[in-house]
């Protein structure tokens, strides 16, 4: 087997050194009646060529986003990632290193994480960020638990504009841990009155902007009311590129900002691996989940970086930890950070501007189709349209014409049939005028 350096001779010599006759002697602790002799229902090893063929055949059954006019978003976005990013994260020294527990020989990873934390803090307008979470959804659930710890309350108020999957994760995690969730109904119009749901038992208010339906939300009044009631504002985003163009949540009073970082540096990959961004105020840092990288000096006084504040973490603190998280999304965070470094502040603004312009153009084209209505007054690169008919069926018809047109709201909210005529549509920098025109023409045709 090409991955195994031991030869039969090596094995024999090693068994002799151990003083054992056969390798099975080393497995003697396994009860005899529970041993198996291999894996009977699985095939034998395959050549590299054969593995490529098997997986290549599966891959060929899928329609890649880059091969068609593509408008699917709803929490994961098709962006163009520079070739440099992928090259760098495939460097052996980044790809095949472990968590930097030995900082003296892990400064590469640690400095990248320190830079990442600073980038995330500045993007979100917060003071500190951690070294990443699994993704935006699990990060949101962790934010709620953190708010519970900070406020010593256990009821989260969750906006109807929060991504339905995120709402599901928050509900699961919060209720499993003994908390409660006050979940507002889906808010496709962007008109919900979340202020009314806040009271003195509220630990936190969870609001997404741009919302799942694309609406931009003014967080200031929500923060004010939350703070007046001793609650925290958890601000969520699923499209980090938006932060190049819209006011950061930190500037609007958010206490914890959490979001999905996939858009920068990371492929769509059918949903993972992605990278959760998590930022907060400095004073809350000891209740923060996840790894933190901090600056220090070495024995020679030279600047260096280490994992720090690990007394919050499970491997030290065990059942008193702030979270059970161990592995995070290190390599995805690295990709995020490299892409962000390449863009720079002005570059992200320009990218965001182009995303917005493309979405505005698309909204114009779709609105012009009789019977189609854009629900949004404001949006970034994604918005919701009402179509005369069943959105899910229309999406299937458009897929048949080679256009991936967006996400029907009911795919994520199956218990809300009243949303069946809504379609969430995104347009990023990868869409061309031709793509948008093809979408509009095909939609008009399908509806006509």
């Amino acid at each position, binding site marked *: 087997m090409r991955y195994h350096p031991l030869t039969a001779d090596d094995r024999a010599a090693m068994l002799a050194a151990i003083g054992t006759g056969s390798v099975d002697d080393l497995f003697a602790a396994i009860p005899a009646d529970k041993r198996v002799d291999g894996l009977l229902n699985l095939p034998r090893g395959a050549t590299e060529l054969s593995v490529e063929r098997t997986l290549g055949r599966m891959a060929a059954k899928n329609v890649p986003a880059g091969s068609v006019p593509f408008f699917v978003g709803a929490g994961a976005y098709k962006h163009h990632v520079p070739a440099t990013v992928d090259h760098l994260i495939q460097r052996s020294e980044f790809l095949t290193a472990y968590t930097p527990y030995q900082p003296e020989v892990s400064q590469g990873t640690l400095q990248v994480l320190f830079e990442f934390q600073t980038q995330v803090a500045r993007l979100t307008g917060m003071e500190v960020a951690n070294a990443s979470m699994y993704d935006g959804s*699990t990060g949101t659930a962790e934010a709620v638990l953190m708010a519970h710890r900070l406020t010593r309350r256990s009821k989260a108020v969750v906006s109807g504009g929060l991504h339905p999957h995120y709402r599901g994760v928050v509900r699961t995690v919060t209720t499993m841990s003994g908390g409660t969730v006050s979940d507002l109904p889906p808010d496709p119009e962007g008109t919900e009155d979340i202020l009314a749901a806040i009271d003195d038992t509220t630990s936190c208010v969870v609001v997404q902007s741009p919302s799942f339906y694309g609406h931009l939300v003014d967080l200031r009044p929500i923060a004010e009311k939350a703070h007046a009631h001793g609650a925290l504002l958890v601000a969520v985003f699923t499209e980090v590129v938006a932060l190049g*163009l819209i006011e950061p949540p930190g500037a609007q009073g958010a206490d914890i900002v959490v979001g999905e970082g996939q858009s920068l540096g990371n492929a769509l990959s059918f949903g993972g691996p992605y990278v959760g961004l998590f930022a907060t105020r400095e004073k809350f840092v000891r209740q923060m989940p996840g790894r933190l990288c901090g600056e220090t000096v070495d024995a020679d006084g030279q600047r260096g970086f280490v994992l720090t504040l690990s007394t919050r973490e499970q491997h030290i603190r065990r059942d008193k930890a702030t979270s059970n998280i161990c592995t995070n999304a290190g390599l995805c965070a690295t990709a995020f950070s490299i892409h962000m470094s390449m863009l720079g502040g002005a570059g992200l603004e320009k990218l965001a501007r182009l995303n917005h312009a493309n979405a505005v153009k698309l909204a114009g084209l779709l609105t012009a189709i009789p019977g189609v209505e854009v629900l949004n007054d404001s949006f970034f690169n994604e918005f919701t349209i009402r179509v005369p008919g069943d959105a899910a069926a229309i999406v299937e018809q458009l897929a048949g014409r080679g256009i991936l047109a967006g996400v029907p709201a009911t795919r994520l909210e199956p218990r809300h049939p009243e949303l069946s005529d809504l379609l969430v549509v995104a347009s990023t920098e990868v869409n061309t005028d031709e793509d948008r025109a093809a979408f509009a023409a095909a939609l008009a045709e399908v509806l006509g």
Partner: protein
Amino acid sequence: IAEPLIFEVGRREVSGVDIEDAGETPFRLGGHARKTPLDLPGLTEPETMRHYVRLSTQNYAIDLGLYPLGSCTMKHNPRLNEKMARLPGFADVHPLQPLGTVSGAIELVAECGRWLLEMTGMASVAMSPKAGAHGEMCGMAAIKAAIKARGEDRTIVLVPESAHGTNPATAAQLGFKVVSIPARADGTVDPEAVKAKLSPQVAAIMLTNPNTCGLFERDIVAIAEAVHAAGAYFYADGANFNAIVGKTRPGDLGVDAMHINLHKTFSTPHGGGGPGAGPVVLSDKLAPFAPVPFVRFADDGSAEFVETRKQAAGSATPFGRITAFHGQMGMFVRALSYMLAHGADGLRQASEDAVLNANYVKAQLMDVMTLPFGDVPVMHEVLFDDRFLEGTGVTTLDFAKAMIDEGFHPMTMYFPLVVHGALLIEPTESESKAGLDQFVGALRHLVERAKAGEVEAFKAAPVFAPRRRLDETAAARNPRLAWRAPEPEGRVAAE
């Protein structure tokens, strides 16, 4: 070799990405536009390359040498897997595309799951957990849901002392009370100790097998039976599953739920701290409670992708959803690529070689280092304690740092907690005998030096590393977690 930070060399207006001009399209931001420019540095492409390539040279990596972190399983990461994960049909598909446009992706998830079930002998698998600890949460949530479905209220989870920290943390996060089980003298869990703690309040036991001392829990069947007899469930931490693939099946041992760290057992790269993937295999009893999404097979073998609890209704009662979308597809591709390449024969060989390598290291070192549980066969990792350093003035930490100067990454230190000054070595099956001999030689040399009284040299280590020993205490006392521009000269005094 100090590389400056991007904040010290980058400039806001500089960019390594050229972006098409947006033209004159109007804004529809509804007054939410940024009010201040985004203060982040940019680098051109050549500057980017230099910065990160130079930084990378300050890392140790498997591709550079043996990385014997016990319990972390740093094995070879085949580049075939990276190549496969980047096929546009896997990397460039969106989780919410119409299902008809991702049938190959669903097939891949199902196939990866099928291999896991064959290897573990379990009934069902939840693929969506994002990492091992997330899998623990998933499995324990299924247990909690199953208990609730039985109309019971059980609040206690038993966890051995030697467990990974994630086990008690997970249990606590799900609202359970953690009760610790001490290890017996030989490093394994005594079924009598378990029985003593079992009660109608006990929901589950969380047991790592092989355990973190590198030992197979020889009484695991008795423990499982006792747990089941008490109406509780058996959660297995599968972090060390890589030692026993093709040798025994957790399902046959009585396990009800077990997460599998794909990055450990099937070599998806760790990437300096992730991403991982932690699918959870479940017994018949727990299968109905698995979270959405999952793949459901009809009698005719056709696969249905079940994304919501509404859709699941009838055949299952999922406890909910634990992450957006469907899990770590990118990692599933890599893991399946590894499984296909190995096959049934190769997977068993990998376990055998991993165990052989660990026992070889043990045999070559046990005359100079100390084994807390004596000369018994170990599984994929060998645990030493610090008794061999007694009186030398050299600590486990010093010893580990000195290894860096010998060109090796240190082993896991001070874990598991059940042993004083633990040194946990996991060579993995990727190491050649020649490589192990070098490693053993270096360790023997260090032991000699420690015993020869070279304590100062140990305290000074590492010397041949990008940094000398770093002040972790200072870092924690006064955390600097983000870069701040230095105060301009001359203004410090004025403030």
